[in-house]
């Protein structure tokens, strides 16, 4: 059985194809102005990599903030449900999942079957999501991928107003004028984000193991701050940014099986 999961996020679209419970290919594209087209491209690429045709896919499931714009979709999957399903598939002991994307941060609690039990979402404020790092990197005039390594060099964090992206930007500009060290400013950015995320996680209660997924999981600066804040080591699966799409593909497979039975 072949299923495809499509995760249409604000910045990127991810596609995962699963065949008989095993991932056979992955692909991604920038969402741009037309998420539907981006998803079509990513699906085409993923099928090509797996040597499959569109008609070989038994079921397409979509998730993500632009879930309604997904092409080919046979069904929809909630983002929290997808996070839970895929995280337990990848890390069987996962019980708390933190998913941080460009514009949203979520914490999800789940059981041993990967069924979502409870969740907390921040979708109203950019200060807890990837957009915050991006805005601060721009203000610091460093590349987004250099932010993490830069922060790791700092022993302490600069004092910045990091409760808000807009205020943070003006603060960073004045800190640069005062010639404060860039690594310390970068660390302050991650510490502030980790603060917000850890308070979300604490509202759910920490159940081990804690898994970090989403694009921001690849940022070593954030991971270091989060571990420090939570006092544990979060587990990061391989390809953390594909977890949403993987969850959708896995749930699609259970839906096909359910119909067959």
């Amino acid at each position, binding site marked *: 059985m072949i299923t495809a999961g499509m995760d249409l996020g*604000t910045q990127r679209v991810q596609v995962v194809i699963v065949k008989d419970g095993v991932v056979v290919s992955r692909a991604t594209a920038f969402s741009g102005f037309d998420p539907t087209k981006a998803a079509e491209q990513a699906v085409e690429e993923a099928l090509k990599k797996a040597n499959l045709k569109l008609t070989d896919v038994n079921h397409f499931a979509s998730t993500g903030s632009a879930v309604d714009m997904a092409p080919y979709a046979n069904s929809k999957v909630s983002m929290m449900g997808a996070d839970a399903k895929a995280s337990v598939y990848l890390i069987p002991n996962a019980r708390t999942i933190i998913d941080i994307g460009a514009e949203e941060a979520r914490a999800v609690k789940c059981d041993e079957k990967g069924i979502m039990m409870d969740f907390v979402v921040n979708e109203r404020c950019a200060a807890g999501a990837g*957009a915050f790092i991006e*805005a601060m990197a721009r203000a610091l005039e460093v590349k987004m991928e250099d932010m993490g390594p830069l922060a790791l060099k700092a022993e302490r964090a600069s004092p910045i107003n990091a409760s*808000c992206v*807009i205020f943070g930007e003006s603060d960073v500009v004045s800190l640069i004028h005062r010639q404060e060290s860039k690594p310390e400013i970068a660390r302050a950015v991650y510490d502030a984000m980790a603060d917000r995320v850890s308070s979300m996680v604490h509202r759910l209660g920490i159940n081990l193991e804690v898994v970090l997924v989403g694009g921001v999981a690849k940022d070593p600066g954030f991971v270091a701050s989060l571990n420090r804040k939570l006092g544990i080591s979060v587990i990061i699966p391989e390809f953390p940014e594909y977890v949403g799409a993987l969850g959708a593909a896995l749930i699609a497979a259970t839906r096909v099986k359910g119909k067959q039975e």
Partner: protein
Amino acid sequence: MSQPNAEFWRWQEYHRIMPNKKWTNKDLITAGVDVGSVGSKAAIMVNGEAYSWGITRTGSNSPESAKKALDYALQDTGLRVSDLKYIVGTGYGRVNVPMANKAITEIACHAKGANYIWGPSVRTVLDVGGQDIKAIRIDETGRVVSFLMNDKCAAGTGRGMEVFADLLKIPIEEIGDISLKVEKEPEPVSCTCVAFAKTEAMGLLRKGWSKEKVLAAYTRAMAVRMANLINRVGLEREVVVTGGQSKNIGIVSRIEIILGVKTLPMPKWRENGLDPMVAGALGAASFAKSLYEKAQKG
């Protein structure tokens, strides 16, 4: 308006000496310096009456911004800093006003200043500054009864408005009027976070919305936030708006519609009236007078 690097957020710095007012060596001259996150304001009072003021943009150095604002208020008055009997510092940067004899919170100073500008009938003051929004309940003497503030988020603040002025390429001093140039009020933007609202606004522009309509939708959302803050602290007439956003007619008129009350009219600051943006500095100068008199009595 079409220059590529125009700074649409930049508002005008200015100073004013009240006409027909004079000072002599016998007068009690005091000052209030309000160092905000975006603007620094200084006001001079002669025997407790507003005499002059200066408004400048806050730089990255608070003590320097305080000095700049005070020098601006003193410009062309013939007064020197040494003529000031007592100086009170207030605002976000109040602990960094080196010449101040005392620091007082901007909440108390805005309350006092609103009482000075509009008189004893004021009970609710909405102060919308560069980096926070405060709803303050006051009594007939201008004393604070209770207050609520939002200082964690740029939504609704002057800084948020500056970001929108830049995004839409509309000078900040015109955004209030332009936001009212819509035939029908659009639905407010759904994102209050300025970073997200910017993304949402770009989407609306791509969909073919006019700048006026986008600005109306954003201004409406911000006015709803401010009205909520007032309702939470408890609405009591008369209501006034202070701080830089008091000059944004788009905000003020929408708050009036949402709350169902008229705010007291803004003094004609462009002519020879007092400026609600200087309310905090005036309140501080007024406190300075009382504090000096108290010290003299021993």
